[in-house]
């Protein structure tokens, strides 16, 4: 089984949202994904990292951790923060629910992650932080080993 992994930690600043997208795309590229699959991964990661920055750390900064794993054709990304956590994960995952309507958050973050990745798992402890795990299978196309 082919395996590879990558671990990053960066400041929870909004400037790093694009950095996280670029980093995850660069790592996932070795699976030879289609542009659509790569866009799915970039978008899902952008949502998870933005959540960590805006909700986890309430835009006051902190460290965001991003761990990526490749196991054969399965791509996994885990985005973690050590911020305020989520009281009610099921409620937070409701489409269009937002705890910050005044900031014009659309409440679509988790829905996007769910739609664009194959699996999504969210665990959170109030006061300790949130971990978002997502997996996506990148099927081989002819020419891939």
């Amino acid at each position: 089984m082919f395996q590879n992994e990558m671990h990053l930690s960066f400041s929870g600043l909004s400037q790093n949202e694009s950095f996280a997208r670029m980093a995850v795309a660069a790592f996932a590229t070795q699976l030879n994904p289609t542009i659509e699959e790569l866009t799915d991964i970039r978008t899902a990661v952008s949502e998870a990292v933005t959540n960590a920055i805006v909700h986890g750390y309430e835009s006051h900064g902190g460290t965001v951790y991003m761990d990526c794993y490749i196991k054969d054709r399965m791509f996994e990304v885990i985005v973690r923060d050590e911020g305020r956590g989520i009281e009610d994960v099921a409620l937070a995952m409701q489409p269009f629910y937002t705890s910050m309507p005044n900031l014009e958050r659309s409440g679509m973050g988790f829905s996007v992650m769910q739609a664009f990745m194959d699996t999504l798992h969210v665990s959170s402890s109030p006061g300790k932080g949130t971990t978002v795990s997502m997996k996506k299978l990148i099927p081989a196309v002819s020419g891939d080993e």
Partner: protein
Amino acid sequence: MAYKGPYKRPQMGRKGNCMEQQTLRKGTQLTVTLGGELDHHNAASLRQSIDALLQDKSITELVFDMKTVTFMDSSGIGLLLGRYRLMTERGGKLSIHGANRYVERMIKMAGLSPLLQKQAR
């Protein structure tokens, strides 16, 4: 001696990644042309600058030209939804032109399909 070639730096904001913006006022219509990546980082400053222009209540038609937007996540949807509410409150309208298939997919997920116009401006 360091090479000073013809390369141009991308137009980076003072604090981060690229988001280009141009506005054109024509009668009661305001066209906002966006380019680059529309994420949470860029949405905040865009919101401020667009809302400053929308202080002029004679603007009743807001057009977003998104043909050079390369990426948009749900923060961009938040920006569009917010401006849509502003325009609706004043009895005006909002339309979105030139979205690529990935940007369009996000817009459709948010239920904003009626705002999409196929032809770029």
